[in-house]
């Protein structure tokens, strides 16, 4: 049975200027110990999706419809105290910007001891501190620095601390929201490798959210490509790489620069993401699609199963496979 099952999830932001449907009808599953990549531009809804899984969609967001099952339990039905015991312990979240994710007035060791003692109430202060020392040491943080404050560390170090906090209680699932976007390239690779190593050691499932498809292709078993709140393509990474179907996915893959080519024109997808207060009718992507058809502009595009566990939301594949939904 899969660790995580998301079924027809829809999330709205009810702002004073109108309702924004940030996530629309999203369904997927994730097995224990596997990785899922969520790829998409800013505003595609991937962060909202991530936050929904731990039920922390910020005001004025509301989960309108759907089910999120973790180990068979629908977390949307849980009372808040039970949800809190899941957060940090069973499911951990790593935020994008390490510079602002830590409490500026709390020592970093305090972050960890507090976490341990919240979820494992009978732990003594000394025990929690010992465990903290071990965790932070494994992450490359010098023992003499564990009583320092967050602002005394660099961005890369702070992200390591965040990762440490995430894995401290050995969660089943870690959601990493753009864990490397705020870091420079060299540190990026180190952090991702670190994450991967820890994942293998502890057997955690990982959802990696990023706008950088190259990272996701390298490190994930399954990939979801999101756009304007909808899943446009969903397949294993091997399949997606070999056989990208959606014009958007193709565009994204083409725009990844190839280090080995001497002369290269950077291909970009023309246009920009839609205004979510008033999105295009029909397929959300049609204004930027080079293969747009008449039906794309008018009818809501269904998700199509094209075999090999590969799903595409595009009318160009509609007649080929069986309709899903």
């Amino acid at each position, binding site marked *: 049975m899969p660790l995580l099952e998301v079924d027809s999830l829809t999330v709205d932001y009810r*702002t*004073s200027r109108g309702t924004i449907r940030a996530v629309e009808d999203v369904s997927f599953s994730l097995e224990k110990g596997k990785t899922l990549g969520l790829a998409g531009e800013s505003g595609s809804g991937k962060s909202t999706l991530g936050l929904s899984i731990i039920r922390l969609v910020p*005001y004025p967001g509301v989960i309108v419809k759907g089910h999120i099952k973790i180990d068979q339990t629908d977390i949307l039905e849980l009372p808040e105290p039970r949800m809190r015991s899941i957060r940090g312990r069973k499911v951990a979240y790593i935020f994008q910007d390490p510079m602002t994710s830590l409490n500026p007035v709390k020592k970093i060791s305090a972050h960890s001891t507090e976490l341990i003692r919240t979820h494992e109430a009978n732990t003594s202060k000394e025990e929690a501190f010992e465990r903290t020392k071990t965790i932070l040491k494994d992450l490359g943080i010098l023992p003499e620095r564990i009583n320092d404050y967050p602002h005394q560390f660099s961005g890369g170090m702070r992200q390591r601390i965040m990762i440490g906090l995430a894995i401290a209680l050995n969660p089943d699932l870690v959601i990493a929201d753009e864990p490397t976007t705020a870091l420079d390239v060299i540190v990026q690779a180190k952090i991702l490798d670190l994450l991967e190593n820890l994942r293998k050691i502890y057997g955690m499932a990982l959802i990696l959210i990023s706008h950088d498809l190259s990272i996701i292709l390298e490190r994930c078993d399954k990939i979801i490509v999101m756009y304007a709140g909808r899943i446009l393509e969903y397949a294993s990474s091997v399949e997606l790489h070999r056989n990208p179907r959606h014009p958007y996915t193709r565009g994204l893959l083409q725009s990844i620069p190839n280090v080995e080519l001497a002369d290269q024109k950077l291909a970009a997808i023309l246009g920009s993401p839609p205004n979510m207060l008033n999105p295009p009718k029909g397929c959300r992507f049609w204004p930027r699609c080079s293969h747009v058809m008449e039906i794309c502009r008018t009818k809501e595009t269904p998700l199509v199963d094209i075999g090999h566990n590969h799903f595409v939301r595009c009318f160009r594949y509609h007649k080929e496979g069986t309709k899903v939904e």
Partner: protein
Amino acid sequence: MSKVKIKRSILARLISGPTFMAKKGPSGWMVILGIVIALALVIMTAIAPWISPHDPNAINVGPIRAPPSSQFPMGTNHLGQDMLSRILWGGSVMLQISALSVLVCFLIGVPLGLFSSYVGGIFDRACSLVIDAIYAFPGLVIAIAIAAVLGPGVVNMALSIAVVYIPSYFRVVRSQVLSIKELTYVEAARGAGAKWYTILFRYIFPNVIPSVVVIATINFADAVLTAAGLTFIGLGVTKDIPDWGWDLTDGRALLPSGTWWVITFPGLMVVLLALGFTLVGEGLSELLNPKLQR
């Protein structure tokens, strides 16, 4: 030419103001409510000579310390003066003092702030040091000190109060100028050879106006309260002028006998006046502060 543009846009704003404000949610409503209250009081004071039933200074128009009745809707005080008439007339002093002090603050604080922060350097630091020292000092104490040495009178009181609030204008203007000064379009103007006064008045000043307006309204409310306070201590205008502040001071002695009406109605007026301007100021400041916009 640019000045005409600014004037026209301000005028256009004023006309479309209320509808514009109403659409902006609770902050907009605050502003409208504040303006309505303030305007009502100003108008009431202005037309007092025509609608006042009695001469506010005339004594013994009715029984002494009479409670509110149909004849004297707000009662009479210890001199037999009609409270209603005194209420209608009494705002004039406070309005004059507050308006004058706001004007003085604006005329001194804004140019000083603009100039000082734009020029920078030692001059700016010296000014800031002096201004900060005044700013940190208890406002009422400054007002008392100056009023004590200057003596009674509308102008003197206005000046005392103005000194207290000039630092607020200075600081607000300065912080705005400092952030605008380094923006690219200002740099571009400088690069194009614009003179300093052009940059200051065409580019920087218009951006500073909204914050100054907010400060001015809050300043007005504070001035009202400070003027009342000064009068209460005995540093107010001379007794022959009807003033809510004096009623509050006199009414104090009447409290032990349970004569509540002499302080209640003037007190209510002062609160309304201060409230009106505070609402406008707070509403405007919320509208201008994007951080609080959801």
